[in-house]
């Protein structure tokens, strides 16, 4: 139990664990301090100065995001003077930010726009200076628009501190400071792994995911094309939120119905691809573990960013990697080969789209020549849950009241193993269960994962397969992945682990 600290927020007594910042402490007293640069996932950087508060006994304004609570502290979070200071900060930020809200990808979800609205900013007292820096569209997934950057530092913090990728950094200083890919090159030429964490954390429209919806509309309108779409496991629990439904609502049947109304000829479910991936990976594990053919430990993932990370930072670990494709790519290959034959259509006349939870999948579809296994690009376009939500809105589909429909036969059926892919560790667990069954002929009883103290995002377990001990580990986000890879590498170097190769 952490030591509790007592303080007063606007004369309301609160008690919070030691180390909590004043901004979060205020939330426990139902006080919302406005902020722009602070993000709960990331260390406070105190860049924007909007979250300033007054502390009794100090004549300075303190930034509440970066100020830890202290016993007996008396904080004033809101008064006309503080509101005026915050208003000035917002006006200054707006003086370097283009007024192109109407055509901005973050229109309606922009944190700066919300602040300007909340503070009722009606005019701009400062001369507007917009830097002319071209947008960077060099990756298939993410667009950088440094013109809109407010220098909050979130993208840099997440790219370096959480993902350990170091693709983004600030360059220059003072009012010349700008966010840029490592060494001021194009993002596509940088170590970027297209994980999209920068765009997910950007408060404004400076980093956003590429919109590919136009490609889908064109395909649907093209009468020569047989249009097929697949939806990923995670989409069915995420899409409902965009339509005001309870977060986590499962809307699988409604998505099938909406995709049909959008004009797709055939609806498949990536879960079928996931089943294939599990069988492949389970079998591969058995081959390596039982027959001793191939390198151990076996590393699996369906995340193309992870693969990119490994290729860039741990090329020596490639033999440990599963050779199985990700579910979206397996299903796509099946669609443009097996299914194409079934419906007697040339693969080049099939348009395959995928709806995925992540911008990284946009990059995966053109990753390398293996993504063209049917002779043409296996997936023609990949869109995210958010893009699908926009398409549904544009098409005037009343999503919440849609009746449930079913997925199409042939490649639409799937098991429960595929569905757990959406969770971190789901792939590993599904493959492990499959491997266990392949070896023993019986189902694996529950896997007990042990959380590692102090290492959030890493889980480990040991299971017994016919007397042989199998140790598994699951990592969430790139930095944790690195921790495990380093551990594996040093164990291999010390000769502690068998490095089996065929």
């Amino acid at each position: 139990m952490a030591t509790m600290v007592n303080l007063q927020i606007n004369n309301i007594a609160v008690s919070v664990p030691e180390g909590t910042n004043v901004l979060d402490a205020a939330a426990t007293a139902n006080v919302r301090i406005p902020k722009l640069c602070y993000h709960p996932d990331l260390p406070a950087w105190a860049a924007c100065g909007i979250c300033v508060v007054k502390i009794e006994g100090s004549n300075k304004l303190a930034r509440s995001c970066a100020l830890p609570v202290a016993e007996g502290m008396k904080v004033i979070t809101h008064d006309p003077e503080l509101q005026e200071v915050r208003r000035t900060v917002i006006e200054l930020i707006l003086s370097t930010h283009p007024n192109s809200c109407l055509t901005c990808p973050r229109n309606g979800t922009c944190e700066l726009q919300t602040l300007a609205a909340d503070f009722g900013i009606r005019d701009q007292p400062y001369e507007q200076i917009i830097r002319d820096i071209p947008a960077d569209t060099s990756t298939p997934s993410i667009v950088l628009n440094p013109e809109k950057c407010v220098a909050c530092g979130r993208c840099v913090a997440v790219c370096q501190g959480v993902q350990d990728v170091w693709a983004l950094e600030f360059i220059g200083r003072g009012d010349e400071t700008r966010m840029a890919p490592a060494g001021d090159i194009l993002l596509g030429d940088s170590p970027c792994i297209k994980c999209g964490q920068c765009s997910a954390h950007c408060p404004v429209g400076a980093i956003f995911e590429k919109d590919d919806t136009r490609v889908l509309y064109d395909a649907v309108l093209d009468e020569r094309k047989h249009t097929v779409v697949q939806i990923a496991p995670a989409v069915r629990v995420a899409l409902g939120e965009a339509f005001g439904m309870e977060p986590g609502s499962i809307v699988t049947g409604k998505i099938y119905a909406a995709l049909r109304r959008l004009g797709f000829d055939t609806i498949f479910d990536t879960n079928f691809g996931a089943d294939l991936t599990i069988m492949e990976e389970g079998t591969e594990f058995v081959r390596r573990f039982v027959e001793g053919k191939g390198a151990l430990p076996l590393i699996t993932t369906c995340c193309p960013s992870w693969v990119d990370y490994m290729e860039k930072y741990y090329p020596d670990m490639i033999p440990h990697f599963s050779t199985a494709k990700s579910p979206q790519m397996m299903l796509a290959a099946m669609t443009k080969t097996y299914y194409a034959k079934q419906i007697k259509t040339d693969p080049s006349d099939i348009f395959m789209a995928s709806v995925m939870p992540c911008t990284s999948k946009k990059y995966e579809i053109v990753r390398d020549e293996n993504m063209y296994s049917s002779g043409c690009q296996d997936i023609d376009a990949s869109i995210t849950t958010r893009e699908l939500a926009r398409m549904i809105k544009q098409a005037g589909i009343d999503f919440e009241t849609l009746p449930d429909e079913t997925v199409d036969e042939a490649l639409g059926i799937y098991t429960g193993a595929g569905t757990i892919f959406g969770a971190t560790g789901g792939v590993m667990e599904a493959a492990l269960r499959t491997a266990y069954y392949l070896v023993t002929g019986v189902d694996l009883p529950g896997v007990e994962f042990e959380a590692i103290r102090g290492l959030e995002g890493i889980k480990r377990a040991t299971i017994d397969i016919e007397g042989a001990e199998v140790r598994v580990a699951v990592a969430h986000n790139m930095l944790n992945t690195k921790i495990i890879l380093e551990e594996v590498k040093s164990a291999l170097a010390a000769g502690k682990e068998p490095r089996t190769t065929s």
Partner: protein
Amino acid sequence: MPVTEELTLPESVQDFIEKWRDKPGNLIMVLHKVQEAFGYVPRGVALELARELDVPLAKMYDIITFYHFFKLEKPGRNPVSVCMGTACYIKGGQDLIAELEDLLGIGLNAVTEDGEFSVEAVRCVGCCGLAPVLVVNEEIHGKVTKEKLPEILAKHREVSAE
């Protein structure tokens, strides 16, 4: 982004890296040495340094671009630094920059086409009594007037031609 041919570190820099490899704050020291050797920090060298010192390239450029001292572009054979410290500023440093632009056809932080001169503005050089001050090839020229500039430039052009 210009591509540079100078990809290998000269021995002096390599020795220097060895001396500083495990010391904290080594990057700044090594960058100083690199700039001393090349006159700027060539891209290829920055890449090699990143590998050598195990510093992400992003961090390297963060530092190079933070300090005005470090340069990413090759300067002219005769770098001209116009002091814009308070005294020189008041005594007409800006006029010297304007005149240099007329004479050389380049503004600040640029290099003449023939590679002879580059011009930059610097903070106080430390001899305010001589304001306005101009530094060419580390040689200080004090009480400079617009009229004296052609002569100063010609002198350095001759020296570098020898």
